[in-house]
């Protein structure tokens, strides 16, 4: 399966990148890690005119602690997140999630910005961003704006990113001493996309239950999170989630598995 022909540019500045994206509109695609884009090209599922390789933009790299926020640049690879002592210390939920992403060779190239921008409903990062109340930084020619995770994921593979905008960084509030988190995903094999997954985080403001593989986007199970008993929460989950069937699992099975994860997260976080 050989990719169709496309042109390639590697801008040396974000301004240059934004210029290219504006000029080529729908015909341009951003190339970051390429771990999701390149397979679609090889399989001829997409046929862009131009790939804009943003890997030269060092300003999109780096993990930095600033006040109560950990800022992760969009081009930070999954491996870099995995190795980061700051992530381990300040965002244990993220540290727990990263080893589940595919395999080492993929994590060495895949980026957090790429994963959040693609918003695959079965991916780990979008749910973590939702659970941790992350804030995305979007930059376009018109300027920079910040979007909360809750507003960022809109529909299947659709985010708040407008044409011509690039996700440049994501900021997470760092953990407080009393915070509890629990990450679990159900897969048939190590590294697979989740059948259903749950990124759960409790802080002073309350419990956030972010499901993935349970809808067109990551989904916050708000009603379940507001309940005081596990049984009530499981019942409420049926109002929070409407998981679609996938190739191997019926919608009923996905719902059932979501409840199993809820129970496990609930028990873990309650300790």
């Amino acid at each position, binding site marked *: *399966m*050989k*990719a*169709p*022909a*496309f*042109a*390639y*540019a*590697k801008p040396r500045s974000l301004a240059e990148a934004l210029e*290219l994206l504006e000029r080529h509109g729908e015909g341009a695609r951003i*190339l970051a890690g*390429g*771990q999701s884009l*390149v*397979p679609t*090209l*090889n*399989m001829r599922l997409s046929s862009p005119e*131009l*790939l804009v*390789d943003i*890997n030269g933009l060092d300003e999109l790299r780096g993990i930095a602690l600033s006040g109560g926020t950990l800022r992760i640049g969009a081009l930070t690879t999954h*491996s870099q997140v995995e190795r980061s002592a700051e992530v381990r210390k300040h965002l244990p939920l993220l540290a727990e999630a990263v080893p589940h992403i*595919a*395999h*080492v*060779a*993929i994590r*060495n*190239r895949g980026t957090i910005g790429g994963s959040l921008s693609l918003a695959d409903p079965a991916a780990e990062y979008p749910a973590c961003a939702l659970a941790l109340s992350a804030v995305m930084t979007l930059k376009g020619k018109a300027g920079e704006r910040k979007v909360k995770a809750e507003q960022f994921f809109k529909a299947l593979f659709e985010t708040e990113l407008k044409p011509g905008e690039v996700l440049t960084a994501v900021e997470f509030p760092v953990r407080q001493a009393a915070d509890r988190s629990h990450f679990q995903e159900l897969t048939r*094999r*190590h*590294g697979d996309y989740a059948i259903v997954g749950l990124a759960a985080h409790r802080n002073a403001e309350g419990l956030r239950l972010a499901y993935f593989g349970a809808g067109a986007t990551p989904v916050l199970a708000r009603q379940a999170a507001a309940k005081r008993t596990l049984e009530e929460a499981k019942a409420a989950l049926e109002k929070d989630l409407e998981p679609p069937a996938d190739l191997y699992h019926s919608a009923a099975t996905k719902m059932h598995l979501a409840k199993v994860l809820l129970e496990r997260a609930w028990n873990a976080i309650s300790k």
Partner: protein
Amino acid sequence: MERDLEITLTVNGSEVTRRVAARVHLVDFLREELGLTGSHVGCEHGVCGACTVRVDGDIVRGCLMLAVQANGRKVETIEGLTDSRELAALQKAFYERNALQCGFCTPGMLMAAQDLVRKGGKASREEIRAHISGNYCRCTGYQAIVDAIEKVMNER
């Protein structure tokens, strides 16, 4: 903004300059352009691991990286790591344990295994299995591969 670009990269220690179409992925470039046929193509969607090579010291899927993205980078393949003898201990262990049959997954498997081995320390069989869980082998059923890697890690 071109469809073909000139790239210069280091491959197995030698500098190489070529003109390549943007759409060519790294493992096809290595195989077709440079004759380094030791890295294999198994799926072209990043799942099977047969194309695993090293770029700037990190293992990557050669089918998911465009050759043009390797411009300015250091690429190492099974041929290079054999010549440098970096893989010698693993190759010996695989040979003695028969941790390969048809050999098609083997270069990628060795690259993945070496990535674990050179981290140092020991690893449990579960950890070894997890580390190679992205490399498909149809012939061996994996146990012999785990045995061979375990031996190399434990005998250091």
